């Protein structure tokens, strides 16, 4: 009998734990949405901060984050996809692949502040880019590389081998097979990786602290060697070292909400694409 009682107790606890995790997420989301929704409107999204960042909007931060996303992905996406093509299609299962995979995992586990240090040392100081969109984008790009490589590899692995052998049988070369058969089939999954990296890049603060982010700029950046404001850094500034912390709280809630919405959209899109893909798989 006590066996049963133990089981009931243990399983009830685990169920409560499960509920607790759900509660934590909805607690955080609910709190930010509830407080942020009062501030976020069209004007908030399209105007500059005013009165020492206690009113106005967050337009330059949104634009800055947008630039950083574009900049980092222009650089990291092709590189990551090509790297995954190499490991999955060319390198076979040799020690090189194993080594590369370990390195990719290691790169993924390096803390983002270390990327920030590296970016500052190499891009800002050594290559003399200064605090700029370019330096920040390159740093963020390196940070998101492992994510792109991993998702692309998964995507390529999901392409049935029959497609490849079929293509070879028709006389296609390896590269033709990759271009015409493998990549189009894997495309939706690869895009999932791209979307997830957008989420990652838009939320990172530590790597851009010393490579790109500015406390406040009265103008939009005009070139890739300009500093930018960025959403996550703006939230940090508003929350901890604005001119008047209490007065800038509403602005902080609004910024946090915008960040959360980006993450929500990214996750929804990714799981939508994934779901669609699984359906396709079942059909074939």
């Amino acid at each position, binding site marked *: 009998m006590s066996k049963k009682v133990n089981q009931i107790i243990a399983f009830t606890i685990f169920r409560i734990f499960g509920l607790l995790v759900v509660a934590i997420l909805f607690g955080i989301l609910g709190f930010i949405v509830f407080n942020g929704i009062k501030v976020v409107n069209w004007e908030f999204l399209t105007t500059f901060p005013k009165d020492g960042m206690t009113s106005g909007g967050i337009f330059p931060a949104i634009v800055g984050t947008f630039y950083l996303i574009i900049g980092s992905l222009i650089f990291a996406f092709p590189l990551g996809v090509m790297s995954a093509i*190499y490991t999955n299609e060319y390198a076979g299962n040799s020690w090189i692949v194993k080594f590369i995979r370990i390195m990719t995992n*290691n790169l993924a*586990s*390096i803390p983002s502040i270390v990327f920030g240090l590296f970016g500052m*040392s190499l891009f800002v100081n050594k290559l003399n880019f200064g605090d700029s969109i370019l330096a920040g984008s390159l740093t963020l790009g390196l940070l998101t590389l492992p994510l792109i490589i991993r998702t692309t590899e998964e995507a390529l692995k999901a392409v049935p081998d029959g497609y490849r052998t079929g293509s070879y049988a028709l006389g296609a070369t390896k590269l033709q097979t990759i271009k015409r058969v493998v990549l189009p089939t894997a495309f939706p999954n690869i895009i999932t990786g791209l979307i997830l990296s957008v989420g990652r890049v838009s939320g990172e603060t530590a790597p851009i602290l*010393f490579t790109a982010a500015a406390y406040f700029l009265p103008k939009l950046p005009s070139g890739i060697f300009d500093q930018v404001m960025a959403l*996550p850094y703006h939230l940090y500034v508003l929350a901890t070292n604005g001119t008047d912390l209490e007065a800038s709280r509403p602005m902080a809630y609004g910024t946090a909400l915008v960040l959360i919405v980006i993450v929500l959209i990214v996750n929804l899109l990714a799981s939508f694409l994934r779901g669609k893909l699984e359906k396709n798989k079942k059909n074939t």
Partner: protein
Amino acid sequence: MTNIKVFRNIIDKIIEKLFTISGAVTSITILLITLFLFKEGIGLFHTPEVERGYKVFVNSQNGVEELSSLKLKEIFDSEITNWRDVGGKDLDIKIFRIDDVFRLYSESEFGENYELLPQKLNEIISKEDGIIAFLPIQYAPESPDVKELLSKNINAKDYFFGKEWIPTATPAPLFGVLPLVLGTLLVSIMALVMAVPLGLGVAIYLSELAGENQRKLMKPIIELLAGIPSVVYGFFGLVVIVPFVQKTLQIPVGETAFTGSVVLAIMSLPTIISVAEDAMRNTPRSMREASLALGATKWQTVYKVIIPYAKSGISAAVVLGIGRAIGETMAVMMVTGNAAVIPVSIFESVRTIPATIAAELGEAPTGDAHYQALFLLGCILFVFTMIISISAEFISKKQYNKAS
């Protein structure tokens, strides 16, 4: 026609070469990170202890030849007041900073471009036996009555085992990383103490108890938790958890090690849950069924069969959780209060390695000792996480070998 074909062939070859080169990109990045971090960081041990551009002088009658940066700091903080305590004669220490010269002489006595300043400084130092003067190099007096204290380079022992982190201390900044390392470990380990039981519970729930529909609901929730930017966690911690901790525990400030670890626990949950769940789901069906067929309850099967089987996967989950916690910067910086002292209680403010880098690098001039010390902190962090990641790899490989 054939020309185009040849051209195409060349392009194809180039593309394939590009694939090969890209394959090495992560390895090259890691190599570059190692190179640049250590290059900047290691320079610290070739940097003199005394602040750049300054030197410390004493009267030539003084028997003391050199002082450690800790002793220098204590002298200039008036904690040591007699030369006897640092191996000299029984003589009161008289501290002299460059600004003090203006109390003894009027501005006009130094000449137009301060060219007479070194001479005046010389007079002051040679008159006073117990003086210790902290002066800019360009005004350094040169005479047999004045002796320059030898300045050693910062050494590794003081850095790694030093108990004080005071980068702005004059004349010699103190870079002892012990409080930061201990702060990081304290916050991370406490976070793990909270997150591991919770995360494993949820993993068991997901892999053994939840139906397909519940799983479908929970998975995106966990992914979302992982996707929320750390600065948002920090902000949430700052406006919700910090005041809550302060009120319920009746302490003067809510920004404590404890608060930081609560936030970190939430942040490392997704990693722990998904890695542990994967490991548990990998338990072969036959093992579960054999256990159930022997009359074991489902719970007995979980803790006698599944958990032991998934042991290495679960350890990997814990290790990766630590990795996530140790490197977290923004959230921790926003809620732990950032006092760089060796933690004595979990309800006091602490400062972690990443938070120190983030908070101070902006103010440290490039190439300065402070800058180098922060890069060396980055190296420590890098080495920590590399060890963690490699051991996680190693542990989960064990699991994989068992499964095949």
